[in-house]
């Protein structure tokens, strides 16, 4: 099929790698086993934990990386590469489509239960904690809407704001959809958003200066819609996330797929069952239709244990089944407390060299295979809040490495 690189998985790293490879002049094919874990992230791009704006904004990421252990993926990739990758992402047109704004350190947004959560960049009108301090807030809840926890959010942010009210409003579609995706589509179908917001305006507390909507204001047209809201209501309008998988993640998914499909291909519902190896080179992979797909290099961006790239057996063994790679197994079965078990599982993963190439259990190293994202070991995305950062950095970096490899 004349593809340069096969990318197995549907994670953010998979798309980043494909897009970067295209920039460098290489074709790729994403063999996606479903959608990626970034859909659970509510549109947040988490890069560097809860670190605030200390040590002068420009150096926050460097400082963070310097403080990490040497086996951490950020360290393997290298501080400069990580910074370059993150900047590349935020300057790329995929970020521009979503109007991600970033400040080279964390911004803080609100989680679905109202807690402060960092994000390295915020998409267009994503609620920023700074927007709510001492303000008069209205949280909009749509009638019949499930999975938007207005009460929990209100209870959490109460202490930071001046006044807060929750307003129940009727949905634009008479069907009164309960779930986020149908709500978002019904907003896209609105022929006149202004009329809809005009009717809401009558009910909002006059004192309110900030209106927080659930993040369902359209899948495709949300920039239009939220602008229309701000114009009609004459107040600042923001989106706060619903329970995942939430719409901001789906918007990002659409943009990523559109970008890849411009020149490359995505095989949806594709599962790789084995690989064909010869002389320390992977020649092809075989999918669940017995199709043999050849390429010159391979990236495995299939999400570690969470998304199926790595499996945990009933006796506690952790395995990577395609290449039988060496695994860092942190013995989660021996842990006493649940938070230890979680950490042990999260930090387990494939052991790679500094180019992100895995080493097999028989100590062979394949020259053209790379692992990225949650497949990697020695990092805990949920404690460090660095999930998307490692995805972007490892995806970008492995694409660069492949480019060097193929050039030789």
């Amino acid at each position: 099929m004349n593809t340069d690189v096969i990318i197995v998985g549907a994670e953010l790293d998979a798309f980043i790698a494909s897009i970067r490879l295209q920039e460098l002049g290489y074709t790729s094919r994403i063999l996606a086993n479903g959608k990626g874990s970034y859909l659970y992230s509510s549109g947040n791009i988490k890069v560097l934990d809860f670190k605030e704006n200390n040590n002068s904004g420009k150096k926050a990421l460097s400082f963070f990386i310097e403080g990490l252990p040497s086996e951490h993926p950020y360290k393997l990739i290298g501080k400069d590469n990580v910074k370059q990758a993150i900047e590349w992402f935020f300057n790329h047109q995929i970020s521009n489509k979503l109007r991600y704004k970033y400040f080279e350190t964390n911004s803080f947004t609100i989680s679905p239960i109202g807690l402060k959560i960092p994000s390295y960049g915020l998409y267009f009108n994503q609620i920023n904690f700074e927007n709510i301090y001492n303000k008069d807030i209205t949280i909009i809840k749509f009638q019949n809407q499930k999975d938007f926890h207005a009460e929990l959010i209100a209870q959490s942010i109460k202490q930071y704001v001046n006044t807060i009210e929750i307003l129940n409003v009727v949905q634009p579609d008479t069907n009164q959809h309960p779930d986020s995706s149908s709500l978002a589509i019904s907003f896209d179908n609105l022929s006149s958003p202004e009329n809809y917001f005009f009717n809401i305006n009558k009910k909002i507390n006059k004192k309110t200066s900030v209106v927080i909507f659930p993040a369902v204001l359209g899948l495709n047209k949300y920039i239009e819609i939220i602008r229309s809201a701000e114009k009609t209501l004459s107040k600042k309008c923001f989106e706060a996330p619903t329970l995942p998988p939430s719409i901001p993640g789906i918007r990002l998914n659409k943009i990523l797929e559109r970008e890849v499909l411009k020149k490359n291909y995505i095989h949806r519902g594709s599962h790789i069952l084995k690989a064909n190896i010869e002389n320390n080179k992977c020649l092809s992979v075989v999918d669940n239709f017995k199709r043999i797909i050849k390429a010159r290099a391979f990236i495995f961006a299939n999400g570690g244990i969470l998304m199926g790239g790595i499996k945990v057996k009933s006796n506690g063994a952790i395995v990577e089944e395609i290449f039988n790679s060496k695994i860092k197994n942190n013995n989660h079965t021996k842990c006493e407390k649940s938070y230890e078990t979680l950490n042990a599982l999260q930090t387990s993963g494939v052991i790679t060299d500094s180019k992100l190439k895995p080493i097999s259990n028989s100590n062979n190293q394949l020259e053209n295979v790379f692992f990225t994202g949650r497949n990697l070991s020695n990092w805990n995305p949920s404690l460090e809040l660095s999930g998307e950062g490692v995805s972007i950095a490892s995806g970008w970096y492995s694409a660069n490495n492949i480019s060097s490899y193929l050039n030789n």
Partner: protein
Amino acid sequence: MIINSYQPSSEDILKSMDNCTKCGICNSYCPVSNVTNQFPGPKYSGPQSQRFRSLEDLVEISPELCNGCGVCMSVCPNEVAITDIITHAKSNLNNKNKKISFIQTLLNRPDTIGKLGNIFPTLSNFILHNNFFRYLASQFFHLDSNAPLPSFHGKKFKKFLEKIKIDSNKTNIIYFSGCAVDNYDSEVGIAAIKVMSYLGYNVIANTDLCCSLPMLSSGEWDAAINRSKKLLNSLTRSLDFAENIISTSTSCSLTIKKKYSAYLNFTDPKSTQISQSTKDICEYIVEKHRDFLAKRMKAIDKKIFYHGPCQLQSHGIGQPVVELLRLIPKISLSLSEADCCGIGGTYGYVKGRNEISELIGKSLSEQIKFHKPDVILCDSETCRWNIEKNSGIETLHPIQIILESLNV
């Protein structure tokens, strides 16, 4: 586990309910639950309900509204065979009380209707497209008056087949024409045969056979068993002469590839051989003849819009049509971002369900209006008829444009 099996059996399918982590990604992408509250979504009707179905007989209505598009299965990161689980629940093999409505019984037999209609095609077409008839059919047979009906083409395809000469120097390939080509879309079959002949094949057409997908999708499984056995027997004999079977319908080829084992448990070696020898025509051409064609395609002065049908995603083959079209010099090609056109095979023909189809198809209609193409391409028949009816723009099978570009 379903993933380890190339031909998962119905037991594998139902057991895959255990893989579900309730992530909800399937619900976010389901075209049906995104437009109507009547359908609770694939997660609910699939793995969730299955846990209760295995306890005792339930009286359910929710599975009926699934349109079988398979999008949920292709976005699921955990290999849950969601669509298949829901379709199992519709089956009349398990539910002795299941009633197949009269209209569904008719729709399940497109080959029979086709044969009858083609005795006097002009008369049949007149009746079929007559407003009064449509009104009567809607009142008494529950055939929705909006349903996109094709035209009978007489025995055009058969007559074309009679004129083909066999060249014993060429490789044989089997073309499973299917009900649509046999009775309504002769041009598609003719184009397919011309292209394959150009590529150096003797095309042996297996006509007058039905893959039984409408029966499988609607739950009329007892009848489906006989019908599919008939097809498999015929194709087994054909495989004595050829290695591969190609089809111009992504729905039919998917059924043969995966659904006989998943629904009817046809996991014997003969059925498996047929399943693994069957390919979609564009899938086949890309795999074997891409480079040959790359030098021979001529420019086409038409704005093209391609909609990959929902079934295509379940094939896991990426976008072979797009790969072929991109070989055409200076091609003006825009891609549909809609997952489903709404018609769902025979789903949208039934009175009461057509409204849902219309709502689903809205996004696609808007995209078409935006791109203003000269011709629309789609590789599944009822989708083509649906799109052409709604857009008023000529809608062809991609192989017809390929033929045009080859100037044969």
